[in-house]
């Protein structure tokens, strides 16, 4: 591998000629004849909509064609659609005949148009329609899903060009040639595995190959399985949940759920995490949670009774039930970023502080002869009030209960240093009092209210017997 040229392989091996775009003969024919009609000056439609699965060569074909026809490529993608003014700027530029620099023609490429939000990117769709009306250059739109309702008007203004999903064999052939070119040692089985996993997406297949080739210097089946298998699972979870939530029919949601290797109790967490992101409409969200919480109840009953044959109902409620609850078309098919179940991450992140809290609860439970649950819900909050408002008194409680510094910090971040310092002083005082032997043998435990007669009258190094009012002085 050459060190100096660190371009991602997907760019390095991007087709430079139209002929290199594989297996899209039909699309190529339609697209090129449309482009020719533009160059002759009489296009039937001023824009083309290229659609099809990811990684099937849509962008590549436009780029290769621009190169061959020596056209300047003016490109925009989803992140640029935020403001309609951006699109209008392009529209103005494209309405002029030729670009100022030289007399070259242009192709205007709008990538990922299905990423436009009908609400958030207000006006963007209108701006694009306007651009198509005014343009003096070919406009190419690219989308994965052209049937999205919000794209209806655009769809009608464009010439549709369909791209097919690549087959496993074609992907494999391309991977082989890359391996050869990179002088990479590749097992045939490994390439087969990568091609299978890519599900027709050449870009992801090349990325996977690069990940293995660059990372390990060779591509074996065992490596592919362990390295890629793991990533696959995570990617799948997002995709599976997305498919479930966007399902319009019960069978769709159920079919989507059957494609995951997440266990039902994991899947319900994934859905729980992401359902509020998709179901933005409060009514949809409420309905979705009615269903999801029912699924959860069924799961609890299954665990309790051991009747695993009831799992089907829990599954239906968490998949089809939730999917059909999300109805508002404004949000149902909107692409939003999904997340990994946050609870699992939070548990890992907070392990330390939870350990401190549990230890503290145990100490309190022992003193008060109560359960740790009661200590957590009733006693710790009250202790926290004391630690937050009266550091002096808190320090005495630390001594009496035997709390650690981290427990102090858990109870009051703001007073922790003060309290820790004061505890140190009190300990020193205590040692001094013991060393001076003023009280004979030190008693174990602490003073008790029912033994007031044992109170000594004088004491050095300690506060006078004035009682707590001393402690409470701030």
């Amino acid at each position, binding site marked *: 591998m050459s060190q100096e040229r660190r371009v991602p392989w997907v760019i390095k091996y991007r087709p430079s000629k139209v002929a290199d775009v594989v297996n899209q003969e039909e699309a190529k024919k339609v697209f090129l004849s449309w482009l020719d009609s533009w160059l002759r000056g009489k296009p039937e439609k001023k824009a083309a909509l290229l659609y099809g699965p990811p990684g099937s060569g849509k962008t590549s074909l436009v780029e290769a064609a621009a190169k061959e026809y020596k056209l300047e490529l003016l490109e925009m993608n989803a992140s640029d659609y935020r403001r309609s003014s951006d699109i209008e700027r392009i529209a103005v530029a494209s309405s002029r005949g030729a670009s100022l620099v030289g007399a070259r023609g242009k192709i205007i490429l709008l990538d990922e148009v299905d990423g436009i939000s009908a609400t958030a990117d207000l006006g963007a769709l209108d701006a694009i329609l306007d651009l198509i009306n005014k343009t003096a250059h070919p406009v190419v739109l690219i989308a994965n899903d052209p049937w999205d309702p919000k794209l209806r008007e655009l769809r009608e203004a464009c010439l549709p060009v369909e791209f097919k999903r690549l087959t496993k064999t074609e992907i494999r052939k391309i991977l082989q040639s890359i391996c050869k070119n990179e002088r990479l040692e590749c097992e045939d089985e490994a390439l087969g595995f990568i091609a299978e996993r890519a599900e027709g997406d050449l870009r992801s297949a090349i990325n996977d190959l690069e990940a293995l080739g660059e990372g390990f210097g060779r591509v074996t089946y065992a490596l592919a399985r362990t390295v890629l298998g793991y990533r696959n699972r995570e990617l799948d979870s997002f995709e599976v949940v997305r498919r479930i939530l966007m399902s319009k029919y019960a069978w769709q949601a159920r079919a989507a759920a059957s494609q995951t290797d997440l266990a039902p109790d994991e899947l319900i967490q994934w859905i729980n995490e992401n359902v509020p992101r998709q179901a933005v409409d409060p009514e949809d969200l409420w309905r979705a949670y009615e269903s*999801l919480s029912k699924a959860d*109840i069924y799961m*609890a009953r299954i665990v309790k009774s051991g009747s695993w044959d009831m799992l089907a109902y829990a599954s239906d409620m968490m998949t089809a039930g939730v999917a059909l609850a999300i109805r508002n078309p404004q949000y149902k098919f909107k692409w939003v970023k999904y997340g990994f179940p946050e609870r699992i991450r939070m*548990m890992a992140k907070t392990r330390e502080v939870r350990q401190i809290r549990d230890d503290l609860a145990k100490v309190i439970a022992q003193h008060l002869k109560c359960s740790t649950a009661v200590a957590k819900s009733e006693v710790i909050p*009250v202790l926290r009030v004391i630690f937050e408002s009266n550091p002096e008194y808190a320090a005495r409680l630390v001594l009496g*209960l035997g709390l650690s510094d981290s427990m102090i910090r858990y109870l009051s971040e703001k007073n922790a240093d003060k309290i820790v310092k004061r505890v140190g002083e009190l300990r020193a005082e205590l040692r001094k009092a013991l060393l001076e032997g003023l009280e004979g043998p030190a008693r174990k435990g602490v*003073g008790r209210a029912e033994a007031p007669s044992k109170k000594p009258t004088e004491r050095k190094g300690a506060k006078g017997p004035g009682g707590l009012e001393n402690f409470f002085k701030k």
Partner: protein
Amino acid sequence: MSARGTLAELLWAEKYRPRSLREMVNQEEVVKRLQVFVKERNMPHLLFAGPPGTGKTTAAHALAHDLYGEDYRLYMLELNASDERGIDVIRTKVKEFARSKLPANVPFKIVLLDEADNMTADAQQALRRLMEMYVDVTRFILIANYPSKIIEPIQSRCAVFRFTQLKKEDVVARLKWICNNEKVACDDRGLEAIYEVSEGDMRKAINVLQAAAALGEVNVSNVYKVVGLATPAEIRALLKSALFEGDFLKARENLRKLMVTYGLSGVDIIRQLHREIFSSEVSVPEEIRVEIANYLGEIQFRLVEGADDEIQLSALLARLVLLGKLLRQQPQARPTKVK
């Protein structure tokens, strides 16, 4: 009192816990009967039932103390069934202790099972056999808030003692006595306020008393300050973002904080929400308070059945978001903000 005694401080709920039955000021009927057991140095298995903070655990320890003296813990195994609720604990720890040889100087050993109503049904069944097999050397004291959750065969093997809710004047008198002992200024209205917020639960009342004292003196304003401060800010924040701002994701973030960092259970959170919903600081139409209370009840029931805390409480949040939206659409019933 040692230097340690004045420099170090305990939680008053521990410090002022009666050590002997003689010191117990409430539950006179129960105490009288228990003192008979002490006198005769014999007793059946016991089941103490009653609301929290009415002296059940205290009575059990005091009974053992009066039977065996200061070192009573040598002859007693204490377990809190909420923390050790499984059948394994019964089969190992409890069984081992129950069948161990009886020390010469005592008539029997005691197994104290606190919060026994939290034991699984399997564990209770196992327990029942132990109670029969080792009755000659070991007596059991079971403590429960809800005796109905103790299986019938165990109930029938125990003498049941019902602990009644403490009266207001008794709680106030005890709190006052503690204040005098600690030389803390207090007024009656402050002590009465403590009784109100702790719903007759003596342990809760003493905890609030101690925190109020730590704020300076025990008066009404300090008592409510303690209750306010002891309620996690996230409870109110959660209500605010769900009900008034319609922001589900933000509300859920607060929910997770309460569960993960504070370690509150779903039921704890529901109880606190319940209190909050009826507080004057949350201003919603009265019928909405009732509707939310109804839903809280439903969710708590589901949790008791074993459902997942986060999913069920998220369902509650979704409900609150919808309620809030509907409220905002009806201008005559517009909710105002949480303070």
